[in-house]
């Protein structure tokens, strides 16, 4: 365990309350960004999602979500 601890950088913390608070703060910062910037982030997130899916150029376009049944309930 001591050996593992030595490999963890000093700035890392396992204080879960602190981690949750930090995550919340990040989400608030992202929410507060100008809308144009958030839309650009969506562009980037989609690009990344497609890369992760390992899709070829042809398959990229086909990576779509299943549509919900809007108004059918």
């Amino acid at each position: 365990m001591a050996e593992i601890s030595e490999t963890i950088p000093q700035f890392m913390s396992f204080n879960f309350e602190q981690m949750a608070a930090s995550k919340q703060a990040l989400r608030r910062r992202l929410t507060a960004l100008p809308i144009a910037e958030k839309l650009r982030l969506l562009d980037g997130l989609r690009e990344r999602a497609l890369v992760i899916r390992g899709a070829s150029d042809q398959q990229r376009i086909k990576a779509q979500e299943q549509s919900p049944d809007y108004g059918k309930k």
Partner: protein
Amino acid sequence: MKIEEVIRTVNQMKADGIITNYAIGGAVGATFYLEPVSTLDVDIFIEVQAEAGSSIISLDSIFSYLRERGCTMEGEHVVMSGWPVQFLPPTGPLIEEALGSAVEVDVEGMPARVFTAEHLAAIALQTGRAKDKARLLQFIEARALDLSSFEAIVAKHGLAQQWQRFQKQFLSS
């Protein structure tokens, strides 16, 4: 691959009279109020007029307009600026109301019409997939909703039971 270009094209469709009105919904719509969450497509809800002498709404004019501008069709989506876009006419009273109540947001000088946060949340409650529930939870946690307005929409559209179940499942501690 740019959502801004999709919005610009849809604004042009409105200016050219191809659609009477539109509003952005789904995950892209939610991004106007919340932190961005990865999504693969764009949901654009549209108002279109039925052709003269017919009560049937046809999306043919939309598709041919977009084909002429280099967009391609992929199943139920139109690929615009690299994004699969779904054009959705209203399928029920909640969506009709959401379209009528949508708000215009300025995106670096370009107008974008978006569902209100309360309508997006009510639609998420109605559609009820796991990701929709997660989105509704996001709206609540981010305090992005006017709760009295949201609950009025929920009551008006017969979603009170779903809302009660949701609260019991996710909000009671």
